């Protein structure tokens, strides 16, 4: 009773003053009851008035006070009338109304919504984007008003979506129908979950709206599926790039020497640990240039892996020429030693290699499809390395020798190619490329002593499918296997994907034992 009287008195009193806001509502902001405060905040928000922004902001900043019956804003040593905004003289002993967490939350969302009416387009855009996930049915009139005033096309599109979401709870079936239709054009999982309740009889009494909602969910689903598959294909492409870096080296050494280096995966590991080492070095000595540790790691990883490769070739593999199966065992022994060495040096746990700043984030193609920069860069890097290897193999004298030894070792030796040295060089090159693969791998997966183990079989499959001694074959096989296995993984799970790929390769070898691209020649064995 007293409150109503107060409000009435205030109303009468404010008639004389020039008032932008309803003083009764302004007074209610300082009411004793929280629910009344909330109601007042909501009503003020609906006016979308710049004065409302001012007073709500003051309330959020704790500069709103109650002086007698008047709500005043006190800023330093100045005081303003809450409703009109006119400067008044400092009231004696102003009281601060309680602003609890519920009110603060309400104020925050009110201020966010009012930003839709800001003069600055960028502020409006940010607000509209933020609103998408927190639309409530009460916002519908506010959003409608913002939509009327808006001129920017991008903000308008966002507002249409937000308005449609708010309207889904409208009592008028026609409004709901329009809202569902507007939302059917989107491809975001959150909007799909907003629409889902409407596809059931309990959530939507009107048949027409319900059918429309079912169709809309279907449309969104199919768009989501496309985005998902594109995303999978892309991660397959980046997996394929790493496989390619692993397989290139394997293909070269297998082509030149006819041996499979089972420690090839451990050369990837050497590359990855070199990256880790460079990161630690930069952290300790050049913390300002930490983002550049990765480019610095590339040559280091290449030479570290190549060095390990040369040592392996000179001490073990060289002595086993012509005994391919035994080479398999000896190189397996090398891989065990390398794994254990990594465990002793760096510990059995995975070490942390972080992406540099310029590699984080990604390109958002669709709401649920983000292409991460690190994967994009890895694909580009693999293509760059591939180009260098192609130039090296096809345009240089060393490359010519490598090709000659691959095709016919005895004949190449007869015409003066130093085959033993070419073997070492080719092995070092293959190992170095694996080291580069390790740099790439360190950016998207864990770096640990066992990391190379999984890649030898996959890399070998690439060599088998691609054909021996063929760069083009390795490229097609690596990218194909990468994409195919990621797509299969999405549909059937990782294990089934792995098994079916193995089966596919066995069937493939039945048809083309020499791989996709076979060297043509007349020879047995």
């Amino acid at each position, binding site marked *: 009773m007293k409150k109503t009287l107060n409000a009435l008195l205030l109303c009468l009193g404010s008639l004389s003053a020039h008032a932008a806001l309803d003083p009764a509502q302004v007074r209610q902001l300082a009411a004793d009851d929280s629910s009344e405060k909330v109601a007042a905040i909501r009503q003020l928000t609906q006016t979308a008035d710049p004065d409302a922004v001012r007073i709500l902001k003051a309330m959020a900043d704790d500069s709103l006070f109650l002086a007698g019956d008047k709500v005043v804003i006190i800023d330093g040593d100045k005081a303003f009338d809450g409703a009109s905004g006119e400067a008044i003289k400092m009231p004696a002993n102003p009281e601060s109304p309680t602003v609890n967490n519920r009110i603060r939350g309400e104020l925050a969302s009110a201020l966010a919504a009012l930003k839709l009416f800001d003069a600055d387009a960028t502020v409006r855009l940010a607000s509209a984007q933020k609103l998408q996930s927190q639309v409530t049915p009460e916002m519908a009139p506010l959003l409608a008003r913002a939509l009327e005033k808006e001129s920017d096309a991008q903000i308008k599109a966002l507002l249409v979506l937000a308005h449609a979401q708010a309207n889904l709870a409208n009592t008028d079936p026609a409004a709901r129908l329009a809202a569902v239709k507007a939302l059917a054009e989107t491809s975001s999982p959150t909007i799909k979950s907003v629409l889902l309740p409407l596809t059931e009889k309990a959530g939507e009494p009107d048949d027409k709206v319900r059918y429309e909602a079912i169709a809309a969910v279907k449309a969104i689903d199919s768009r989501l599926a496309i985005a998902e598959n594109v995303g999978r294909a892309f991660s397959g492409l980046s997996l394929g790039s790493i496989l390619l870096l692993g397989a290139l080296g394997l293909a070269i050494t297998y082509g030149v020497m006819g041996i499979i280096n089972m420690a090839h995966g451990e050369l990837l590991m050497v590359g990855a640990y070199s990256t880790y080492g460079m990161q630690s070095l930069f952290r300790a000595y050049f913390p300002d240039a930490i983002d550049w540790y990765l480019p610095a790691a590339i040559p280091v990883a290449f030479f570290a892996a190549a060095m390990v490769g040369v040592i392996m070739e000179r001490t073990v593999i060289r002595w086993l020429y012509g005994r391919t199966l035994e080479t398999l065992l000896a190189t397996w022994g090398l891989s065990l030693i390398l794994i254990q060495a990594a465990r002793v040096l760096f510990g059995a746990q995975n070490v942390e290699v972080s992406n540099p700043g310029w590699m984080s984030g990604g390109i958002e193609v669709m709401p649920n499809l983000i292409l991460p920069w690190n994967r994009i860069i890895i694909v580009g890097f693999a293509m760059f390395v591939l180009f260098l290897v192609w130039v090296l193999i096809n345009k240089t004298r060393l490359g010519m020798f490598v090709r000659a030894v691959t095709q016919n070792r005895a004949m190449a030796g007869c015409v003066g190619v130093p085959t033993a040295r070419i073997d070492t060089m080719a092995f070092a090159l293959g190992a170095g490329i694996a080291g580069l693969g390790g740099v790439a791998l360190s950016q998207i997966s864990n770096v640990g002593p066992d990391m190379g183990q999984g890649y030898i079989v996959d890399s070998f499959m690439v060599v088998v499918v691609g054909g021996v001694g063929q760069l083009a074959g390795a490229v097609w096989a690596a990218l194909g296997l990468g994409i195919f296995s990621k797509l299969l993984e999405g549909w059937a799970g990782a294990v089934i994907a792995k098994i079916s790929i193995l089966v596919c390769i*066995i069937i493939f070898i039945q048809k083309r034992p020499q791989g996709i691209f076979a060297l043509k020649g007349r020879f047995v064995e």
Partner: protein
Amino acid sequence: MRKPLTLRILSSLDKKSWLALGVFLALALVVIPVLHLNFPEDSALHVSTYAITLIGKIMCYALVAVAMDLIWGYGGILSLGHGLFFALGGYAFGMYLMRQIGRDGSYGADLPDFMVFLDWKELPWFWLGSDSFGWVAFLVMAVPALVAFVFGYFAFRSRIKGVYFSIMTQALTFAGMLLFFRNETGFGGNNGFTGFTRILGFDITAQSTRAALFFATVVLLVGSLYLGFRLARSKFGRVLTALRDAENRLMFCGYDPRGYKLFIWVLSAVLCGLAGALYVPQVGIINPSEMAPTQSIEAAVWVALGGRGTLIGPLLGAGLVNGMKSWFTVAFPEYWLFFLGALFIVVTLYLPRGLLGLLRKEKEQ
């Protein structure tokens, strides 16, 4: 160069002495379970349960080594996937052992514990008949044989050989491991089978059961060695050796190598399956890590260390490597992988014919 004393003694043995030595070793193996049963723990002649389990386990591995030698030593085909056949045999027999637990599991249900845990209501179709010893004994041989036959048929048909074949077998066992790691596959996921209580109604932890299993392993090992020697000396064995040394020449002579390869490949898989079946009740657990590529490739080094194409050598190699492994992993767990890796390298570089080859060279000099 002065030879070590043991080497000198061993290389001075003639054929008859070798035979006598073999018989003596076989007898010693038979005596172990007898000692285990008849002498109390405080007696000097007592053989502990740990020792009998360890020797039994190593003999199962030795059987795998003999099976590997048949295809690698004689056929020239290096398989890096024999762990798959070993584990398949083990799993097949494990099904029977799981069913023998009956209602003694921690859930007291008719189904094995892991199925209750997964909320399965009935046994999957491939568990049908797993409570019958006869059917499971058949499966122990038939499942590895079938997998080996299908894989071998297609592989040999398209003339996959050398490193290609080796890596394919490695991929095969890797895929098998992934498959058995899944709970939905119906073989207990990554825990595998364990907690066995009975075999053929007997308590599996009883001394007499252990002794009987040990004895069965000795019999199977000696039997497969005998089979191996007979095969190696038969015409079949000679064709196989020719196949290893010059496949093309053999083909030009009018032989079709596929049948020979396929037969020895499937036989080797069956022997591995049997080894797995005997391994499971003695060790008391089977899980997918038996299919890890590392396990299979380790079997190759047993054969290489002992000497390929000798049948006895791989047995020796399996015993040596596994004996050292049990000692090393307790004494210096950090260095076992260094040692194993070095063993792989040293054996391939300096012992191309294995330890037995070393002995024979001594003899020839």
